[in-house]
């Protein structure tokens, strides 16, 4: 269990980062405030999970070096109690940030709180990824499918982060040359430049793992022809940018932290860069991560 002091520190770091975003771009205040509580709650959620989430993970170095993520065909175990704890921690936090959908959220919250088998009931809808099954479940609960999907995807992440925490030390120092996550295989949401030399790190959209990746290569299609890459940025905030790939038409937002005294907490970075999502999407590019909350900003 993580100490309260650590919690408070993380919470403060997230709040400081969000304040810094608001100060820099007041126009983002609405979005920042929507996510503030959720981000803090999520930072705690991982420590509320009692089971490790996986068993007997051994790294197959040969497969790994060929680009197979650690969790490729392994199961993540989610226990009922932890699921309920996490859900009852996150849903109220979402309510605070998203007051306009609180009716739906209340229904979902009470479903999780009262129905012992809530987790199992939600599972098929989400596992298949099928819009029909998801829609049926949403109808059953009387809430909008988009909201159900949003909440469930947020509920899943702490479990992935928990697994990441255990696997990350096992792959430390191993060479990983892919644009998807070496732990879970998901795509990154944000690219961060760090250290004096400005090495680039990608941040996994699902488990939060961070790995080094070539600066001048597209994570999504591995195109390294720089004439087919473009960087867009605002002259006022040169340390924030979107990297567009003309080869696969995907983009990733990025943050150069080398100049920064206290770089924003990684979980807040995508929020502060949302204006770049707008600019990139307007030009017809889509975010490489399938898990982005900011996929459809232009309509």
């Amino acid at each position, binding site marked *: 269990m993580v100490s309260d002091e650590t919690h408070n520190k993380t919470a403060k770091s997230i709040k400081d980062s969000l304040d*810094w975003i608001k100060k820099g771009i007041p126009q983002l205040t609405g979005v920042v405030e929507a996510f503030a509580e959720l981000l803090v709650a999520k930072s705690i959620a991982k420590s509320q999970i009692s089971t490790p989430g996986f068993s007997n993970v051994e790294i197959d170095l040969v497969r790994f070096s060929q680009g197979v993520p650690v969790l490729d065909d392994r199961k993540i175990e989610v226990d009922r109690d932890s699921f309920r704890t996490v859900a009852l921690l996150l849903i109220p936090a979402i309510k605070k940030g998203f007051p306009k959908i609180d009716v739906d959220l209340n229904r979902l919250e009470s479903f999780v709180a009262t129905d012992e088998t809530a987790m199992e009931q939600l599972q098929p809808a989400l596992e298949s990824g099928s819009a029909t099954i998801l829609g049926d479940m949403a109808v059953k609960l009387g809430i909008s499918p988009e909201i159900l999907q949003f909440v469930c995807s947020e509920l899943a992440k702490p479990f992935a982060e928990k697994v990441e925490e255990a696997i990350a030390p096992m792959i430390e120092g191993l060479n990983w040359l892919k644009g998807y996550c070496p732990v879970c295989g998901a795509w990154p949401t944000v690219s961060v430049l760090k250290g*004096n030399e400005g090495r680039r790190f990608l941040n996994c959209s699902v488990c939060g793992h961070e790995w080094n990746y070539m600066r001048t290569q597209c994570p999504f299609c591995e195109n390294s022809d720089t004439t087919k890459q473009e960087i867009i940025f605002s002259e006022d905030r040169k340390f924030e940018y979107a990297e567009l790939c003309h080869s696969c038409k995907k983009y990733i937002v990025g943050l150069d932290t*080398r*100049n*920064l*005294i*206290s770089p924003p907490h990684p979980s807040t970075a995508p929020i502060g860069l949302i204006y770049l999502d707008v600019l990139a999407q307007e030009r017809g590019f889509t975010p490489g991560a399938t898990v982005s909350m900011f996929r459809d900003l232009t309509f």
Partner: protein
Amino acid sequence: MSEGYSILVDTSKCTACRGCQISCKQWNGLPGTHTKNEGTHENPLDLSADTWKIVRFSEGPSKDGNPFWHFFSEQCRHCLSPGCMAEAENGEIIQDENTGAVIYTPKTKDLNYKATRDGCPYDIPRQDPKTKQLFKCTMCFDRITNNMIPACVKSCPTGAMVFGERPKVLEMAKARVEELSRKFPKAKAINPEDVRVIYIVNDDPQKYWKLAAGK
């Protein structure tokens, strides 16, 4: 940010590439001054209104028969109790509460230059002969208040300079001195309690620069 910031300058890692000296000029828009070689690779020879940071070179014989050759990247120490402020009774010099940076305002043109300079144990302040205004390192105040590290720290290729919250920097300094003392018994941090720009040396400070540890 009650304790403000500090800069650690680990001279054991410095190779005198002068990247810090050049980036200071670049960021602050200071001109490359006309210099001459005066019998040393150190150049410009001294701080001035146009040069707020210089790498001092010093050398001499050492006990093992080989010469020593030390490099000392000098700048304002941003003292916790700045001696230069004794003269500044009308806000000519400001000590920023949040960062701890000691800032010379344009009003310094009204100060007694000699007294201000004499008040500094490290002999840092310099006057623009034309405008009479005093100048020195600002700790990159315009950068650090925008969450950016100082230009010199950013430029250092060997990681000899670190910027951060003062307690963390003090901790780092302590650890590094411990590490160095295993090989260099004279290793120490210079006046860490009094200044914000803390130098680590592994020989007598005076062997680096006559005022390395102050007057």
